[in-house]
């Protein structure tokens, strides 16, 4: 609630919690799962968070978040081949998707498109990118020294190195730590953003656009900015993914990828910061496990999970668990806070 938002202690507590939880997870998880697998789960978590931010807190349902993920990955790969060093490519991988999203967002939001059309346009843009990149196999598709490679993708680019030292590669466990720290940083940035006036206005816009504009807020500009921030995070995840896989292919732009991100958010819990990350990491790990057997197709299982969640846990895991937790705790404090359950939702809703 706002009172808590203005309480600087609240933010400090949040930051402390993030540091402690990140530290514990980074320490404990490698005992259960290989760091190589964990790295990609972290990357997917970041991708989930990017959509969770704009959809869960801004009400922008983007069917094409994979487009920004892919753009980030391709920007990194192309720039890395040309520069032979990873620092500038990493920055470009964040900037290019953000700029593309700002342009696309401005087009959609200033054109006053309604939600359905927004979904259609983002979907179509993803399809166009997928088709285009797929068709760039010929030698004429070159950016600088980098061939786009069509359906074969781009292999063999410079992977992440210590800034300024191209020969000092960051890989293996070190790369896992870098990704974990970056996800924690993005999480903190999202937290700060949601606690700021900008974040709270975004929630207001999600709830009632007309009212917010009647109160003097330029809804179009704010949605465009939020959309671009989401794309920047997706782009960073894309670049990290490119480094992890050491190859980028058009499948990054695929509809399947876009759909998966949406499912992560629904299962994890929309309107929370943690939900999309957990949903992404959990479902991606499940997919990884299912990929090791050939009895059932893993898309069937993902589909089944989505159906079950929509039917029985439509708000997702995180809101359900925190609601349960609050009602347990709340029993003792009922006299002080009569509507604990709703209060819990409302805090999460405004503060993330």
């Amino acid at each position, binding site marked *: *609630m*706002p*009172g808590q938002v*203005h309480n600087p202690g609240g933010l400090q507590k949040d930051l402390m919690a993030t540091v402690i939880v990140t530290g514990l997870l980074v320490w404990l998880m490698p005992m259960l799962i290989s760091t190589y697998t964990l790295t990609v789960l972290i990357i997917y978590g970041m991708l989930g968070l990017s959509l969770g931010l704009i959809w869960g807190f801004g009400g922008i349902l983007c069917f094409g978040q994979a487009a920004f993920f892919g753009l980030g990955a391709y920007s990194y790969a192309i720039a890395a081949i040309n520069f032979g060093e990873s620092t500038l490519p990493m920055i470009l991988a964040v900037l290019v998707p953000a700029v593309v999203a700002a342009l696309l967002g401005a087009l959609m939001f200033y054109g006053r498109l309604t939600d359905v059309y927004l979904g259609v346009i983002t979907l179509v843009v993803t399809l166009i990118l997928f088709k285009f990149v797929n068709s760039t196999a010929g030698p004429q598709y070159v950016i600088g020294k980098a061939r786009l490679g069509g359906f074969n993708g781009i292999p063999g680019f410079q992977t992440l190195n210590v800034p300024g030292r191209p020969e000092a590669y960051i890989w293996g466990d070190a790369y896992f730590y870098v990704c974990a720290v970056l996800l924690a940083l993005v999480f903190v940035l999202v937290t700060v953003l949601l606690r700021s*006036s900008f974040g*709270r*206005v975004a*929630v*207001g816009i999600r*709830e*009632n656009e*007309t*009212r*917010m*504009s*009647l*109160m*003097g*807020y*330029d*809804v179009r500009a704010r949605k465009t900015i939020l959309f671009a921030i989401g794309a920047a995070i997706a782009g960073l995840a894309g670049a990290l993914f490119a480094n992890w896989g050491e190859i980028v292919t058009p499948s990054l732009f695929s509809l399947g990828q876009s759909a998966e991100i949406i499912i992560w958010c629904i299962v994890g819990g929309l309107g929370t910061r943690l939900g999309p990350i957990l949903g992404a990491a959990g479902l991606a790990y499940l997919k990884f496990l299912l990929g090791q057997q050939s009895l059932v197709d893993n898309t069937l299982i993902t589909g089944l999970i989505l159906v079950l969640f929509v039917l029985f846990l439509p708000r997702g895991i995180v809101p359900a668990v925190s609601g349960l937790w609050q009602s347990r705790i709340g029993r003792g404090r009922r006299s002080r806070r009569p*509507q604990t359950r*709703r*209060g819990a939702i*409302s805090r999460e*809703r*405004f503060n993330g």
Partner: protein
Amino acid sequence: MGETVLETQGLTMRFGGVIAANNVDFKLQARELRCLIGPNGAGKSTFFKCISGLQTPTEGQVYMRGQETTRWMPHEIASLGVGIKTQTPNVMDALSVFENIWLAARRFHAPSDAERKTQEIIERLALGSIARKDLGQLAHGERQRVELGLVAVGDPWLVLLDEPAAGMSAEDVARMTEIIHELNKTAAVVIVEHDMQFIRSIAEKVTVFHQGAVLMEDHVDRVLSDPTVRNVYLGKKA
């Protein structure tokens, strides 16, 4: 009085072949309170939407404090210091009363001031007991009151209200009247209204709309006793 805060010249709104507002010339002075009345379909609400930026008039101009605002968007008009309340309660249902009003306050005040201003409005409108409740949980009258809070918290100099008393109990209406009078101490107020009792209790000068055009503009008592106006309301030929 003196300064004209709102003026329209030849404001016309067509929807296909239908003329919803027809060549409306309208003037409102600073700190004036004006009611717009008329039977259903008379064009009051269309006129309201045109001046608040929710619709762009087909012809004519709108001026606010001398500045032309004809094609402005609602947020640009609101940014001038105009408080707008639409016909149906237009609030953030999933947010609390405090959150709703804070969002409105934040637009015009720095974060520290916004909090104080929000508390002030909550006290002024006697919303303290429900401040932490979500708008979706509130009764219609309370929601309307909160929406007036959203309007009031920006310290507007012009307030546009579309049917603020619709569907409210007598007690709520009395409270609403009080709040509007309070607002009127610092702002000019335009009210679109159906409820004759409410109009009698609040208005001095009234503008009567009929078939998209201004039929009459006068003191409330003279307007309501005017045979033409009575005929229009009862649906007889004037």
